């Protein structure tokens, strides 16, 4: 099992139910020029692959597919790299099974 496995997280998230609060991102990345190690860790650790590097090498978030686990909060909120709040009541991921 040393072969690389290509998984598209987008395909997985497609099965989920979301109510997106348009224009109200519940997670914000602090503006930066060079990302901290904590921020860079989120590129891999986020289970919904919400974090990506932009063309300037900065970490950006698109939180629409967020499953609200809090992994990024645990890694990057204490250092102030991200700001984490809950989506407005009723919005965000809505688990059918959980």
């Amino acid at each position: 099992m040393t072969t690389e496995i290509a998984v598209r997280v987008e395909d997985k998230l497609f099965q989920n139910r979301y109510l997106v609060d348009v224009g109200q991102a519940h997670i914000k990345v602090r503006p930066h020029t060079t990302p901290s190690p904590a921020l860079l860790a989120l590129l891999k650790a986020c289970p919904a692959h919400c974090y990506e590097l932009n063309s300037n090498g900065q970490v950006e978030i698109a939180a629409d597919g967020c499953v609200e686990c809090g992994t990024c909060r645990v890694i990057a909120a204490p250092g102030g790299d991200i700001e984490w709040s809950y989506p407005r009541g009723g919005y965000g991921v809505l688990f059918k099974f959980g």
Partner: protein
Amino acid sequence: MIEERFDAIVVGAGMAGNAAAFTLANRGLKVLQIERGEYAGSKNVQGAILYADMLEKMIPNFREDAPLERHLVEQRFWMMDERAHTGLHYRSDDFNEERPNRYTIIRAQFDRWFSSKVQEAGAIVLCETTVKELIKDAYGRVIGVLTDRDGGEVHADVVVLAEGVNGLLGTKADLREIPKPENVALAVKEMHFLPRETIESRFNLKGDEGTVIEAAGTISRGMAGMGFIYANKESISVGIGCLVSDFQKTGETPYDLLERFKRHPSVAPLLEGSEVKEYAGHLIPEGGYNAVPKLYGDGWVVVGDAAQLNNFVHREGSNLAMTSGRLAAEAIFQVKSRKDPMTAQNLSLYKAMLDNSFVMKDLKKYKDMPGLLHIQSQNFFLTYPQLVSKAMQNFVRVDGTPKVEKEKVTLKSFVAARSWAGLFGDAIKFARAWR
């Protein structure tokens, strides 16, 4: 929003919150429960196994209408390497009893049912409402919550924080810290649907019998973690979780890990042909006894995952959550009955009750286990599983080698990998942490 004042506000409608709200309302207190999801359960994620005893203490006849999947008659532990698993398998017809001990459940459905019982008991349940912060008075006592509804302040004598592992309110109000990456695991899980008969034949089950498989080894790629496979009626919950600090260190991705686990030759045939209907991610408290924060203060108590109450050795969490919610409610009821104020001193009764229960006793028993397994994860999750697998293959493969020589090979492989001192050290440390 709501003008009136409540005896208690419960934040969150998971296992802990529902147990607290149910017990408080059942004791006649005026309770408001606030849940940010569309309905109770829509934000909650678990494997999931329900432990009957803790629910029976509140709702003795729950089996009549609760949405239960399968009662467990069997437990399998798998120690895995890349192509094999060495299993320990316990199955007993004793578990086909009138009042089974453990069930698989689907949380979104179960929590919705539990919430209906909370409402029948008389609590007001307000969904689609996010609590933004705790309201404190000039003395720092918690006196209510601020929600995201219009005019969203609500006041109560006590606030029960059942906000889950990722609870923001308590940390915002400096009642506890954000969990450390080494004290929480990230688990990802998929729901695989198959016809009931297919599940029953693949897992060797009859009727509503169920089984769970818990797996550790090279599947976590040297990280401290475990995989799981739970048989529901018409679906299989399959997932894997590892410490967040390990994900951080290794750069492994959770979805690759899950994919590898699903493709393992021991797992793939169980899932073949299934339809995946959901992908979830969730944190699990893993810090044990030493990571439990302060549990009460002036006007507040914290219960369940928010308080890190999880026994990771036995994979028990929802029952600790339920019990802590119920005990917090009993403590509040007692303080209230004496007409005493909800001060930290009076609410310390909750901590005393919890200390006296299996919750804290079990956590205390394994207080050194997180340190051992998490710091030496390479040995326990990679080296030993590989050694055991090699040893098992050597034991069962018949190839003309005399048994004495086979045993020598196995022994040598253990000593080469861990040295005599390492082997003895690991055994002693493990025994100590278990004691």
